[in-house]
């Protein structure tokens, strides 16, 4: 199972806790994980990546293992620790005031 940690507002929207666990078929990439996440929680469609372009929304980042994976190709394999479920893929919102 792949672990994905969500920011607070997406937790409340999807009515889940800090992390969700997902079955991901095939290679574990940003795209396949987000596809699985949106299939399990349709209300998250459009909130992490754009409906049409499938690009990451600008105020979000993807972290894992203390690395910023945001600018990796969405089809690159995620680190083994994430693919094996030892570590979560973190979806992180930018810090902002107001």
């Amino acid at each position, binding site marked *: 199972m792949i672990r994905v940690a969500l*920011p*607070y*507002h*997406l937790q409340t*929207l999807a009515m889940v806790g800090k992390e969700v666990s997902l079955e991901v078929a095939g290679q574990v990439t940003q795209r396949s994980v987000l596809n699985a996440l949106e299939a399990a929680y349709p*209300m998250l*469609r*459009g*909130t*992490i990546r*754009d*409906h*049409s372009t499938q690009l990451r*929304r600008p*105020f*979000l980042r993807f972290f894992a293992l203390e690395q910023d994976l945001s600018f990796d190709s969405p089809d690159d394999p995620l680190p083994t620790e994430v693919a094996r479920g030892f570590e979560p893929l973190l979806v992180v*919102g*930018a810090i*902002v005031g107001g």
Partner: protein
Amino acid sequence: MGKVRVLVGTRKGAFILNSDEKREHWQVEGPHFPGWEVYHLKGSPANPDRIYVSQSTGWFGQLIQRSDDAGKTWTAVSNEFKYDGVPGTHQWYDGTPHPWDFKRVWHLEPSLTDPDTVYAGIEDAALFKSTDAGASWTELSGLREHTTGSTWAPGAGGLCLHTILLDPTDHNRIYTAISAAGAFRSDDAGKTWKPINKGLVSGHIPDPDAEVGHCVHRLAMHPSQPNVLFMQKHWDVMRSDNAGDTWHEVSGNLPTDFGFVVDVHAHEPNTVFVVPIKSDSEHFPIDGQLRVYRSKTGGNDWEALTNGLPQKDCYVNVLRDAMCVDSLESCGVYFGTTGGQVYVSANGGDSWQAIVHDLPAVLSVEVQTLS
């Protein structure tokens, strides 16, 4: 005995305010969607328990929520607003072409007769329609594809379609208003559109009486006189007696004719309310005195309504979707401020009280009159 349900959208969530027909004592529910900007929420006239909400943030984009039980529970419905075809460009602030790009939903207008049908006015300006209670959205692209569309330019708040009026006597007639393109009318249920801006004069555009380019802030109509429209423009309060074909100014003795809101009394089609704001450079009331102005003559002759409103040190704004009226026997008038107050008058504006004082900045106020 009647009652009212007031739907308030704010910078940090939605609130629902309930009262009986006296409108003296209020129950406050919320925040719903805490931390999210709620530009607008509105109930279906055909089923008051059905409420649609526009919810957004810069981080997570746009959501549309729907309630079928008067706000007790919510369901996220489709948030996919895809322009029809290849959308092309409109003008950017500097006059250069800029691609149409969906940013947010400013206004949701439920059908007068079908609770599953709702219209959405979006930024960058376009009109969408859902006939399945928000499960999917289709652009009524005849508006954006009007021959003038490529010349539309945003106002300071963005290129937003913020007003949708549905003619209760002619289901094919729809009015919209766009900042800063102007007002438009469709007589074929949204397929084709024509600009209805004759008579408007705007100093901020090269040709002050151009066909489009006017920063219309709000339109209002009384259901018994659907051919009579009132407009709060960037500057000027305007009136049309022929469904927008031509307009004439009715600012009359207003102390300033800049403002955002305009609305019409529920039972007196010629009684109109505005909230004058000092200027386009200073978005607050003149001299710190919050005053609603009422005309009982359809414009030109205005009286200041001050009873119960702060008359010193008040520097709030009242945004374009933040005024409404109920249809109880004694018409209630409501407005919300950027300071977080929501005011009610249960007697057509003669006196006012604050329902709440300290909400986040109010973006929109709608009221449902319930039996």
